């Protein structure tokens, strides 16, 4: 998907020497250079406040960099992108809409109208394990279910890029793990390019093709770790020696900064 629109050879996301400072304060991101290839699941991990969310927002075109270049599929990002799905830490559902109508929100905002997407939305909800909950209001759903609706909403228009800013950050550990496996399953069906932000090393190793460890503020790339674990990954993967090794490598890269 999206390949026809891509410039041949251009990475899905290219950040080159990107700086971002808010007002006169210290930089949030400095000298960030990073390429994300199409159809890969790439995760940003790093200490709190290292500019992971800011990076995501710059890619989406919601925030402009102070210096440097941000390009998506070879085109410089100058304003809010279309064709991008976004999931935040909080589900931000519309309380007056049912689960189904919330998923259809992106279709209505795009101007395409809800009618043509109704069956797609139902299918996504079914994939997310929410069959039978289509007509429930957000306050009738658990936190995990609300976040699944938010993910379905982000996937509805088949975006060629999915940005996820700590989507499971507000959930309990058990729900979190379950949703990570479900996200992997849904992602396997589409293989959309994903840029994912998390604090959880386990989540990063479990989901990603590539993990980018960032330094403390101002954030920049400290290490890029390729995750070569076979897919689909399941609960057994968590005890795989290679999984443990990769998780340790990510942890070392984060914790060694404590000494710097």
């Amino acid at each position: 998907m999206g390949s026809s629109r891509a410039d041949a050879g251009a990475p899905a996301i290219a950040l080159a020497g990107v700086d971002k400072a808010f007002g006169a304060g210290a930089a949030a991101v400095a000298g960030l250079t990073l390429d994300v290839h199409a159809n890969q699941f790439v995760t940003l991990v790093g200490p709190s406040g290292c500019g992971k969310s800011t990076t995501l927002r710059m890619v989406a075109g919601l925030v402009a960099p102070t210096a440097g270049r941000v390009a998506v599929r070879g085109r410089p990002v100058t304003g809010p992108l279309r064709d991008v799905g976004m999931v935040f830490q909080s589900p931000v559902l519309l309380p007056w809409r049912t689960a189904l109508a919330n998923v259809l929100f992106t279709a209505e905002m795009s101007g395409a109208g809800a009618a043509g997407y109704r069956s797609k939305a139902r299918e996504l909800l079914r994939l997310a394990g929410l069959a039978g909950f289509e007509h429930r209001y957000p306050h009738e759903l658990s936190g995990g279910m609300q976040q699944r609706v938010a993910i379905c909403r982000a996937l509805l228009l088949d975006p060629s890029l999915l940005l996820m800013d700590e989507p499971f950050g507000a959930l309990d550990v058990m729900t979190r793990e379950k949703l990570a496996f479900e996200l992997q399953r849904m992602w396997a069906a589409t293989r959309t390019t994903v840029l994912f932000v998390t604090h959880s090393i386990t989540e990063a190793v479990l989901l990603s093709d590539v993990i980018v460890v960032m330094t403390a503020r101002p954030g920049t790339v400290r290490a890029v770790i390729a995750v070569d674990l076979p897919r689909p990954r399941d609960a057994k993967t968590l005890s795989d020696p290679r999984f443990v090794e990769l998780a340790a490598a990510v942890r070392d890269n984060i914790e060694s900064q404590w000494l710097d």
Partner: protein
Amino acid sequence: MAGLTRRAGQALLGLAVVLVLWQLGPRLLGVPAYILPGPGAVAVRLWQTLGVQLQHLGHTAATTVIGLALALVVGVLLALLVVYVRPVKAVLMPALAAFNSIPKIAIAPLFVIWFGLGAEPKVLLAFLLGLFPIFVNSMTGLGEIEPDLLDLARLAGGTEWRIFGKVRLMNALPYLADAVKVAFPLALVGSVVGEFIGGNSGVGYLILSAQFNMDTPLVFASLVSITMLTTLGIGLVSLLEHVLLRWRPSRRTR
């Protein structure tokens, strides 16, 4: 349903206790009937004057509802201006706050000078009293949208117009319902005060003329009929809210 019947029963019991105390209390304490007539006398007077009551109530209801409708239109438009044209907020807010601190009742005589003894000063007072709560609540409802949600809508291609119709307006509806419930009794105060100071129609006029005649039961009867109007108005808004805003978390079954 059983809970509803029980609550209705409790409310009726409470009302009955108040009525019994009201009927017997003043007699036992020796308060004369022209100071505090019993509920029986009030009911009789209400029945005797039912036609007049309804006629004056109609006038009061009309000026109140027109004033309220104007307050709704102007309040929402002002809120839209503040939400969409940022610089306006800095200019408009202090002016409105200053205006709101004038006791509107105190400028009522001015309206009589300007607009005479007809319906206009009553409508204007009802409008002014209802305006502020509607404006403030609309501003909150239209303006306070989670930034993440607005980002999401824009990334999906949402134009300002679509965001207004599908996000801001929907978000504002429960705030507006609450605002109308507050503004309705206020607008009624505006109408009644307008009727006190001039003219010969409306419940305010009826109460005042009953006072001149020392017809205390009629004063009370008028109070009963105007209370019924308020209850009816707020009940209607609540009913509308219940039907249209089913999703409201406050409507959740606890």
